[in-house]
């Protein structure tokens, strides 16, 4: 067996490969993205980037009904988008196995909320497995397919940032190629009309009881008895933190199955200990279950509901001990993420700031437009919300607001769920201005292709959405394209469209400056003779520009010569 140092996400992909999976459909989302990227490298499996998570889950469900083991991956908020098909696939079940991976982001490294996906498993009545390292990511993925087919249910694999994005050693095995399962027409199983769904709901409840029985004896719910007085019930990454902090000084019940939770196993484990702690990040999911069983466990009264855990937090809360450390007296300025040098979004946000408009924001790199010095964002909720929330804002505040407000949304986000919102603007008519920031890639998650780029996940040519034609087709009469490096053109377009007496779309089009095929101009220089230190060029928040001795200085190693700063300099000092 070959040993590899794999990300948890890569290990899930390896598990898919070994489990004979054939169809994979996902939408990128940190920290889940690399599962599908890694899976796409195996030619034995069909992989795709779907327009959104709902589509991805539906593709996977269709593939499962069609007899092939199928898969989709998403981040925690993506499961909200996919919830509609997922909740009913719970009733339908599977033909060949179907697994859905959801990656939570405790600590919100790259997310807008901190929701705990275990609640979705309970609400959808679906089994959920929770690996704690890369080897388990692979093993649990394969086990999930066995469970899926044995119990006729989709299975959720719950990951989190520290499992998805940590590398650990994985022993790789060969792929088991599985024949396509026969498809047999069976409306009572697969057509969820009320008459068919009613008996299916009964079946789902019975399935949960059987899964609970399975959980009582499952090898992935394991006890480590060290003869200690203190016992810990935990799961996933939290197990690793407790193990690091406490070693073999406590007993463990490590729950590899997050839902449904066993009853007898927990009661027997707890009965032997003087004190039982439940250590779990985010919600009191296991704790509530334990308390329902009548156990007096210690959980959220001691451990936080917010943020990530670590061995330090666990050690301090269980023992009061803390490692000593040194620090400097100096104030260390923070280093927040910023738009990259040459980022095509920068010019647009600078123009929005200058026009002092209300900016309904969205999810992507350009959410950084909310940060100083641009400060050009008023709201950001979820994928696609910029467009519909702007429509609502304008309906509330009327014609004057329409002349002082815009939505900004990336190309991939627009396809994900912005286009339906734009249809609302056209259909229910608000004179809203929507700016599509088309950087020709899905940027934030690390350069994935999408339906507007003309390439698929493998990098092969594919059909490309014509954004201008799409916007016109849904009923937007005013559609125009600008180059965001041309600040004058951006500002002029913005002023005109804000005044227009009908809805409009401005497509700000220029590829992400980090794309390999993008050719950069020579770095610019600020002439200290001409520079008067007015700091006008600093207003765009370019990391390549700084002030030294009262003069602007441009870092030649960072500057890509986009020229946005040049147009701001009244003294023509930058060239």
């Amino acid at each position: 067996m070959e040993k590899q140092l794999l990300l948890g996400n890569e290990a899930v992909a390896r598990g898919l490969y070994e489990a004979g999976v054939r169809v994979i459909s996902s939408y990128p989302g940190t920290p889940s993205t690399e599962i599908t990227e890694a899976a796409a490298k195996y030619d034995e499996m069909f992989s795709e980037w779907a327009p959104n998570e709902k589509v991805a889950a539906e593709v996977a469900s269709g593939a499962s009904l069609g007899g092939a083991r199928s898969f989709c991956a998403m981040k925690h908020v993506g499961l909200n988008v996919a919830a509609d098909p997922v909740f009913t696939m719970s009733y339908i079940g599977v033909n060949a196995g179907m697994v859905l991976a959801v990656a939570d982001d405790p600590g919100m490294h790259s997310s807008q909320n901190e929701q705990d996906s275990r609640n979705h498993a309970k609400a959808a009545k679906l089994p959920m497995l929770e690996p704690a390292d890369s080897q388990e990511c692979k093993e649990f993925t394969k086990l999930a397919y066995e469970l899926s087919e044995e119990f006729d249910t989709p299975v959720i694999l719950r990951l989190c940032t520290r499992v998805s994005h940590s590398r650990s050693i994985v022993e790789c095995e060969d792929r088991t190629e599985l024949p396509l399962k026969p498809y047999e027409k069976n409306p009572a199983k697969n057509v969820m009309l009320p008459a068919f769904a009613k008996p299916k709901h009964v079946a789902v409840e019975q399935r949960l009881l059987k899964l609970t029985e399975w959980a009582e004896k499952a090898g992935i719910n394991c006890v480590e008895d060290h003869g200690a007085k203190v016992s810990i019930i935990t799961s996933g990454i939290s197990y690793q933190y407790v193990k690091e902090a406490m070693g073999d000084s406590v007993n463990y019940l490590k729950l590899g199955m997050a839902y449904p939770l066993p009853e007898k196993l927990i009661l027997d484990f707890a009965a032997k200990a003087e004190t039982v702690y439940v250590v779990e990040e985010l919600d009191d999911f296991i704790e509530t279950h334990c308390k329902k069983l009548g156990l007096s466990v210690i959980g959220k009264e001691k451990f936080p509901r917010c943020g990530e855990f670590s061995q330090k937090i666990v050690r301090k809360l269980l023992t009061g001990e803390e490692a000593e450390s040194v620090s400097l007296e100096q104030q260390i300025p923070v280093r927040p993420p910023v738009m990259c040098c040459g980022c095509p979004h920068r010019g647009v946000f600078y123009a929005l700031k200058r026009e002092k408009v209300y900016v309904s924001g969205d999810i992507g790199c350009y959410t950084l437009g909310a940060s100083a010095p641009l400060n050009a964002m008023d709201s950001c909720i979820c994928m696609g919300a910029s467009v519909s929330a702007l429509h609502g804002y304008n309906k509330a505040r009327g014609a004057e607001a329409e002349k002082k407000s815009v939505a900004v949304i990336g190309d991939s986000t627009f396809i994900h769920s912005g286009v339906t919102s734009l249809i609302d603007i056209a259909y229910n008519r608000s004179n809203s201005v929507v700016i599509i920031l088309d950087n020709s890639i899905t940027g934030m998650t690390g350069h994935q292709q999408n339906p507007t780029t003309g390439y698929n996940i493998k990098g092969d040519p594919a059909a490309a959405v014509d954004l201008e034609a799409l916007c016109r087709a849904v009923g937007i009469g005013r559609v125009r394209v600008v180059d965001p490096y041309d600040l004058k053109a951006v500002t002029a377009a913005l002023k005109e469209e804000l005044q227009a007496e009908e809805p409009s779309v401005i497509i700000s089009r220029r590829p992400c400056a980090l794309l390999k095929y993008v050719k950069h101009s020579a770095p610019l220089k600020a002439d200290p003779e001409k520079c008067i230190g007015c700091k006008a060029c600093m207003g765009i928040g370019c990391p390549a520009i700084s002030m030294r001795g009262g003069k602007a200085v441009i870092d030649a190693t960072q500057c890509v010569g986009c020229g946005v700063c040049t147009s701001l300099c009244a003294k023509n000092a930058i060239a």
Partner: protein
Amino acid sequence: MSEVKSVIIVGVGGQGTLLASRILGYAMMNEGFDVKVSEVHGMSQRGGSVVTYVRYGEKVASPVIETGEADVVLAFEQLEAARFLPYLKAGGTLVTSTQRIDPMPVITGVAEYPEGLLEAISGKGVKLLAVDALSLAEQAGSAKAVNVVLIGAMARGMDVEKEIWLNALEHCVPGKFLEMNKKAFELGYQA
């Protein structure tokens, strides 16, 4: 699990800290250790402060490193060296590039880049190795090889055969950049 070693690699998004952590992780796996490498992707990569954790030993549980726990902090930039100093355990080693990159609050003028950081750090009883990694990387052929120069600088203080490092480079670096990176490693090793 006291035998587990913890190395924090810190820098600014885009400096290549991820590759450095992969090289170290791969080398330690080939030394026969259990290894965990924790990376951060997504939002914080965009020019922000980026940290990766590498832990190796007989059996590693947690993939993260907390304050007072690191045997080595490998910093790609002075301010980040200072920021992650509290993660070093007593008697730990800080290997840093002398490079300075202004963060946005300094660029916008709401904060100042502190002076004398390296002197202040060495005053804290820390084993400090400061390397002009940018110049050495340029000497090797590319400013982008700063990460491998620093891996080289750290490697000299470790009891690991050079062959293991070179194997890790071959595994982690694309072929056309291999010779340049080997040179960068050697320059760092000799620094």
